[in-house]
């Protein structure tokens, strides 16, 4: 009652759709990627006159989810996507699963049939709530208009705190059309949701003790470092400790890859010496990583066998899930890192000039020369093209990738220099991710160069959204590795299935230059790596979204690699790696 006299606090009578949009604005949503539909007429009626939220009309809901995901990873804010009931919502599913696997904060709004007919197989009905339960951090099916303020507030709160993830809100038409007297901007949350943020001080002391006494410390940085905006703290610790850093795919950018202590990405398609360092270290500080099989290989007893394992993660459930660790810390990586460094500095446990540091510098230059000069076993031009892209683009350019060989070539040879500039589908491995993610990235960072490193197989899965780019003036550049194969699977067939290329040849593919032009994009074919620089300049100068059709060797392979089932110590295709 008191509130009603305070004007601002007074309950307001609003339409459900108006409540949703008001709360979106309060939560700081400036852009939404979506496609309207019958169940969302009320919501779009409100968005129609709303100037604070820019709506990007996508051409497929999967792309809406990927774009929101890309936006979130670049901006650090939750991305918003919208899809109608039934097929709209089911089309979102892949994109949401992808974002959730990579702990990217996305809020998805879906239309739903009226509450009175839920469960009757009404037109465009799907049980979005049950379908998306296992692929979201949390989801809501709203059954009362007056619940909307709390639901939307909590959707953003849950998506953006703790281990970030996807929250879906299913909105039946009668809930959006109905009116209710509500208090906007609630602060209420769930009694059971208490994200662990502050790391335990006793554990931090144990970590400091271990690191101070270690002779060969190593840091493994995962996506959690980027998500927690802890790149500065990471560098600080690495410099102070004289500890080398290796990253996961998701951790690319956590430390500049030209930093003398950075050995690049470890794991299945990682750098030989990143894996070597894991093998040789005596203390491994793993930060914001879930020890996925792509990082550890499949023989866990051969992963860092001599090391005291330290694991910092914000999600308690990741501790001891894939790797049994010696010292766990549950909490925010940024806080943990600054806590560790502070204590180390107090102890003055600075190490430099150690044998380990000398060895790391050697390893670093061995990897460097590999990236700079040596054309790897098996590849003709794919690796050279990535090295070219790496040289040509600005330091703060954003690179997204599709999935497969192009992705691993990029992971291996693209020198990421800043956090939130290498955006890739790590956990789910979703073909078609890179291009729509680039759209979201460009919206989040309009002044930066945004390039999608793509394969022809992946690009054909989501290329219809060139229409979105042209219509909304989103000039992203697609660097297309054109080998007319589903290259990564073909590589596996070549290496492990006697070259039986079952269904991996794409046969007759479209003329990608003409395809780009048909959409109103800029298109150019790149026959030789030395032509890439001009082509990229032409693409950026055109001011249009662009596709560069780069012809690469049909049988290029990404090497070295750990064969499936193998251990981190045995990589194949290292014949031409420099030996140290």
């Amino acid at each position: 009652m008191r509130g009603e006299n305070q004007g601002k606090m007074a309950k307001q009578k609003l339409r459900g759709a108006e409540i949703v949009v008001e709360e979106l604005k309060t939560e700081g949503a400036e852009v939404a990627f979506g496609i309207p539909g019958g169940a969302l007429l009320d919501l779009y009626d409100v968005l129609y006159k709303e100037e604070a939220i820019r709506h990007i009309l996508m051409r497929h809901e999967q792309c809406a989810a990927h774009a929101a995901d890309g936006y979130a990873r670049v901006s650090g804010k939750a991305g918003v996507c919208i899809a109608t009931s039934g097929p709209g919502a089911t089309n979102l599913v892949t994109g949401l699963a992808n974002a959730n696997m990579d702990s990217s904060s996305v809020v998805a709004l879906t239309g739903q049939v009226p509450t009175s007919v839920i469960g009757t197989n009404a037109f465009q009905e799907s049980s979005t709530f049950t379908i998306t339960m296992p692929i979201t951090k949390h989801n809501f099916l709203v059954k009362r208009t007056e619940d909307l303020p709390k639901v939307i507030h909590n959707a953003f709160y849950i998506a953006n705190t703790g281990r970030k993830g996807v929250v879906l809100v299913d909105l039946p038409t009668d809930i959006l059309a109905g009116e209710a007297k509500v208090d906007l901007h609630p602060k209420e949350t769930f009694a059971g949701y208490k994200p662990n943020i502050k790391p335990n001080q006793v554990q931090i002391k144990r970590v400091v003790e271990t690191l101070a006494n270690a002779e060969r410390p190593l840091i493994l940085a995962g996506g959690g470092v980027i998500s927690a905006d802890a790149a500065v703290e990471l560098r600080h610790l690495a410099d102070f400790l004289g500890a080398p850093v290796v990253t996961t795919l998701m951790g690319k950018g956590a430390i500049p890859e030209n930093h003398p202590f950075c050995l690049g990405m470890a794991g299945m398609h990682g750098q030989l010496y990143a894996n070597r360092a894991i093998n040789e270290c005596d203390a491994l500080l793993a930060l914001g990583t879930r020890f996925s099989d792509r990082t550890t290989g499949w023989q866990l007893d051969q992963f860092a066998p001599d090391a005291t394992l330290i694991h910092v993660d914000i999600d308690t459930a990741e501790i001891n899930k894939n790797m049994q660790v010696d010292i766990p810390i549950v909490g925010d990586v940024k806080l943990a890192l600054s806590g560790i460094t502070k204590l180390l500095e107090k102890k003055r446990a600075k190490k430099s000039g150690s044998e380990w540091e000398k060895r790391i510098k050697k390893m670093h230059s061995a990897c460097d020369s590999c990236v700079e000069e040596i054309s790897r076993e098996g590849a003709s031009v794919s690796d050279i093209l990535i090295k070219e892209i790496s040289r040509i683009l600005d330091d703060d350019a954003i690179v997204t990738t599709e999935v497969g060989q192009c992705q691993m070539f990029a992971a291996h040879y693209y020198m990421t220099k800043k956090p939130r500039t290498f955006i890739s589908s790590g956990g789910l491995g979703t073909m078609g991710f890179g291009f729509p993610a680039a759209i979201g990235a460009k919206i989040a960072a309009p002044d930066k160069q945004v390039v999608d490193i793509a394969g022809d197989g992946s690009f054909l899965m989501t290329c219809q959204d060139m229409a979105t780019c042209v219509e909304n003036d989103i000039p992203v550049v697609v660097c297309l590795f054109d080998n007319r194969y589903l290259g990564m699977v073909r590589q596996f067939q070549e290496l492990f299935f006697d070259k039986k290329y079952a269904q991996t040849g794409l046969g007759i593919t479209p003329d990608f230059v003409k395809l780009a032009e048909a959409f109103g994009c800029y298109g150019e074919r790149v026959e030789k790596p030395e032509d890439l620089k001009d082509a990229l300049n032409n693409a950026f100068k055109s001011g249009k979204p662009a596709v560069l059709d780069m012809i690469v060797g049909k049988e290029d392979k990404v090497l070295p690699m750990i064969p499936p089932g193998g251990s981190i110590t045995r990589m194949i295709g290292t014949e031409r790696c420099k030996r140290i």
Partner: protein
Amino acid sequence: MSGMFTQRGINITSLTVSPCEKEGLSRMTVALEGSESELEMVRKQLSNLIEVVKVVDLKESEAIIRDLCLLKVHAKDSEARSEVMQLAESYGAKILDAALDSVTLELTEEPKKIDRFVDLMRHFGVKQLFRTGVTAIGIGAGG
């Protein structure tokens, strides 16, 4: 919650849901067997569910555990019937209904005791068997 168990490949023995002493909250009792590390994983994943307020791990030795069983047993003649009834009595089972060729029984007990009772009744022939799954409460002030 059951979705989480499926997703993580966890086999559970039973799951019961009921209101509890606090309005608006439910209490779910999950029974499962596993190694200490598997149980740790279950505990963590359950805590991660947004709407789960608290997870309590009740070990068998620290809890009073009860299961309710309803059972319809063949009793082809009066001899069988009286034998069934006698055994039921010794287990503390209630006789809910008796017909010429069957007896309906209820037993609320620890699951293992119910197992033994049901095995015994199989000797006469079990027509129907219902079990609610366990619910449990901590011993003393704990739990």
